[in-house]
């Protein structure tokens, strides 16, 4: 059972997040200010942290910087009412952590925490396999069983990302950021259109669907149907 440390000064938000994460089987520890949160991060060694940016005592980014100096590599999801046009936030994202702007959907938060916890291990594997799906990263080819799937470069990139995170909920915002390097949510449902095309190719007629749409949340590539 993964242990998550939540540092958030607003008790109502904290309660909501704690309840949702507990429902999903996480063990949640809550701290309402920066200094106490930093102590807890040092003592209880959580698997992941959710840190509000504006905190009494010590601001969220400072807490993370302090931990990083001590070589604590716990993945962090930063919450903030502020936007992301900020150099410190960019540094954060490059460090493998994540950032979520308030207000956010709880599904989005859970999906991102799960993504942080199950970050794909750097592997030399050049052949990805999920169920009957096979992706050759060198030959740039895709197969479902014996059927060869013709993919455009952008579709290949999307499928690769999804196969590395199979059975994980991937929200639209996550896909936009990671696959297309988009730091904003466009007006048009770009992701749905691209996903629709990919699904059309991956899930052929008569085959059990592998790409699933989770209503109001995002998409999952399931290894077993």
């Amino acid at each position, binding site marked *: 059972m993964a242990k998550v440390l939540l540092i958030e000064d607003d008790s109502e938000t904290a309660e909501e997040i704690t309840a949702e994460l507990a429902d999903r089987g996480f063990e949640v520890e809550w701290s309402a200010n920066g200094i106490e949160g930093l102590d807890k991060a040092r003592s209880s060694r959580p698997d992941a942290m959710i840190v509000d940016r504006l905190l009494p005592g010590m601001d969220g980014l400072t807490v993370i910087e302090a931990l990083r100096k001590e070589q604590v590599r716990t993945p962090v999801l930063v919450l903030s009412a*502020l*936007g992301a*046009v900020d*150099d410190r936030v*960019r540094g954060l994202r490059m460090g493998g952590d994540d950032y979520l*702007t308030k*207000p956010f*959907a709880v599904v989005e938060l859970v999906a991102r925490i799960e993504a942080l916890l199950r970050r794909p291990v750097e592997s030399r594997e050049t052949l990805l396999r999920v169920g009957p799906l096979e992706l050759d990263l060198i030959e740039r080819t895709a197969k479902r069983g014996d059927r060869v799937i013709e993919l455009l470069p*952008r579709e290949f990139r999307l499928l690769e990302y999804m196969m590395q995170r199979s059975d994980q909920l991937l929200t639209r915002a996550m896909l936009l950021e990671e696959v*297309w*390097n*988009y*730091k*904003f*949510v*466009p*007006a*048009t449902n*770009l992701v749905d*259109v*691209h996903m629709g*095309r990919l699904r059309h190719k991956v899930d052929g007629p008569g085959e059990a669907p592998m790409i699933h749409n989770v*209503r*109001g949340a995002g998409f999952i590539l399931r290894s077993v149907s």
Partner: protein
Amino acid sequence: MVPATYADVDVKQGHPGGEIPMRQPQFIRSNTFHWALMVAGVFAVFVIVLFGFIYWQIDDYLTARSDRVITLEVEGIAGLSPERRLEAMDERLKQDPRGVQLAAIFAADGHRITGNIESLPADLRIDGPAQAANIVKTNGSGRQHQVVRTIARRMRNGDVLVLGRNVDEAREISHVVGEALALGLLPAFLLCLLAGAWLSVRAQKRVEEVNQRVQRIIAGDLRERLPHRNIDEPFSKLAGIVNGMLDEMETLIHALAGVGNDIAHDLRTPLTRARITLERGRTNATTLEQLQAVADKAIAGIDQSLTIITALLRLAEIENSRRSASFADVPLHDMLREVCDIYEPIAENKNITLQVGVTSRVTVRGDRDLLIEAVANLVDNAIKFTPEGGRVDIELLRGGGGETIVQVTDTGSGINEQEREAVLRRFYRSDKIRNTPGVGLGLNLVAAIVKLHGFRLAIHPGPGCRVEIICPDREAAIQPARPATRQAVS
């Protein structure tokens, strides 16, 4: 401290920080009046100096003239025989109705032989040039002391001939001139004071008028303007300038108020829908599925409101941020291909041809994420407003004035002249496209990003719509295109 009333302002103006024991008339304390007073003073001094100069000149002239005359006369009379001399003396004194002539002959021992000078003046140098001397004039009526120009000559028989001439007429002329100048000076001085007072009162009136109007503006009457006459006069000019500023501010304030209304309206619509859905769901739903469907619909409505709020916050964030030190070289040609790549399936779904045309490789200093967002917004709009079967072109061009242009052209309905300003307004959506979904902040966002980079945004009329992001060359580094490509994606 902000003065609350006009009377308050008056007192403070004349005597900053000080108490005034007595209230003088307003105009006397005014700056204009002080100036007028000073000018009058300077004028008076000038007139007095002028008078002095004239007096001195006249006196000098008359003295020199009378000196010349008595010198000539003394030589003439001295050259005559003694009998003729006495005759000439009598003649001279007789022909002197103004009584300015003086003449006498003294014997060598000093007693007077004839003439109207009582005694030989002690300070008179004999055989010297004409000089001023103190003499006593005698005639039948009596004696009087005078200072006159005199000259003395010792004649061959030892007698001394003294001639004199009173130059009091110089003083008389000076007196007349002085009177004339004084007569001129007094009215001029008074005129100065009057003009000063009048100008001062007039200025005061205008200031008061302006102040009253400004007070009305402060009180909230935004349509009030300063008094303005259509003449070439500093005060009117100033009023004109201030009125221009007030016009601009009024427009801005109305625009701001309009934005507030628009935000409220745009937020209320989805929230109202969510509320109705929840209300009806609570009454009508009988199964869990129905309730979930209701909740989903309500969440969608609330999400839309949140999207609007997020977009507004993001807009404010970009508008308030400065050129970041983290600006880097952004290759525009690659960026445009990327945007095209993302939007290609969407265009294809609508049967729209999306093409990117790049003739040169251009790099600009900027924030890649924001620039992608700007171009993506333009392309998004273009696809949205282009009917099926149309086309959208993204092009990278070189402008004539040494600039790089990112141009997005579509074959949609276009933006007409009147709407061109309006589309940059927050939440503006043309009536033609009321039913197209969207937040109505897209172009604002583009404008804010473009401004942050020091670029320009231009919207051109049809056919269709042409929007350009113009990057001046100091922001761009151009390299010749390796292959001049024109890549067709769709």
